């Protein structure tokens, strides 16, 4: 006679199968979940400052400097080239602007349009910015160029991340 609390053969099998099945499912799912959220787990190593040029080379005419940074994009870690327009403004302060056009992301050039020799010019849709990086109203870009975080150490200019204003 089965007592009330006794587990029948059928129940026992059911329980144990669910248990095993559950383990198997978990075993399969865990790596998948981990894989999916992995990039979130190791929150991006903060972008460090990279030496770009000697401060003594900087004049009041913007020059374009290229440098490489490590970029973590999802699962890929890669070296990407970045560039900056570097010059000294009237107050002798160093300015480093991102050349990425705020319209659709082309690279802007200094003084490349003969009609506007004192402006940054975007070859893609004729966007323009004044020397301080402000977008010229009436051209496609709707925001000023990003400004790099910067620091000067031992006569060298270091650039960090470009920040929107």
């Amino acid at each position, binding site marked *: 006679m089965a007592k009330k609390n006794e587990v029948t053969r059928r129940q026992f099998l059911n329980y144990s199968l669910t248990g095993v099945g559950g383990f198997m499912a978990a075993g399969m799912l865990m790596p998948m979940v981990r894989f999916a959220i992995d990039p979130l787990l190791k929150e991006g190593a903060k972008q460090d400052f990279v030496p770009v040029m000697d401060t003594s080379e900087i004049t009041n005419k913007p020059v374009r400097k*290229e440098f*490489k940074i490590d970029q973590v994009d999802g699962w890929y870690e890669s070296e990407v*080239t970045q560039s900056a327009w570097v010059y000294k403004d009237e107050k002798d302060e160093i300015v480093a602007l991102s050349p990425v*056009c705020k*319209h*659709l*992301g*082309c*690279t802007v050039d200094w003084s490349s349009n003969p009609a506007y020799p004192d402006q940054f010019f*975007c*070859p*893609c*849709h004729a966007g323009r910015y004044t020397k301080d990086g402000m977008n010229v109203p009436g051209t*496609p870009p709707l925001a000023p160029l990003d400004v790099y975080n910067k620091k000067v150490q031992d006569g060298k200019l270091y650039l960090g991340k470009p920040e929107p204003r």
Partner: protein
Amino acid sequence: MRWTESDIAIYEKEREYVDTAVLPLIPISMTSSVKTTVSMGEYISIISGELERQLKGRLLLMPAFTYLQTENSESRVERLKQVEEELYQGGIKHIITLSADVEWKQSEAQLSSALLWMPAIPLEHMDEQYKMETVSAQVKQVLQFVTNTWQSNTNS
């Protein structure tokens, strides 16, 4: 813009601004002169990647058009024309094809895209700095070519 979901989403929104497709022509061979074939492809990929980075707001970098080194030129041209046709149908106005394979030069007249041929410079043994300079010198010329294509078409 690149051939990725996120870039294409922007493309769909900004179609009127993106009127140019860049199509790298990349040969395949596993049996003869493998290394030269690879170096042509690698060089063209680097240059097209850089081109995209600098002019991403107006051009769409397509997946490469690949062909076997042994494929005869009629058949290559025929296939490439179909791709061109598809792109024009999709609203692209300018197609820039990039190749390091001199054989495309002979077929240039049959194509409606602007073919940009350049010899592959072997980057393998260069140090980083020199590599960057070499590539950016080449890219400068390519940029010039592309912006000229745009200008000659807006003025005409």
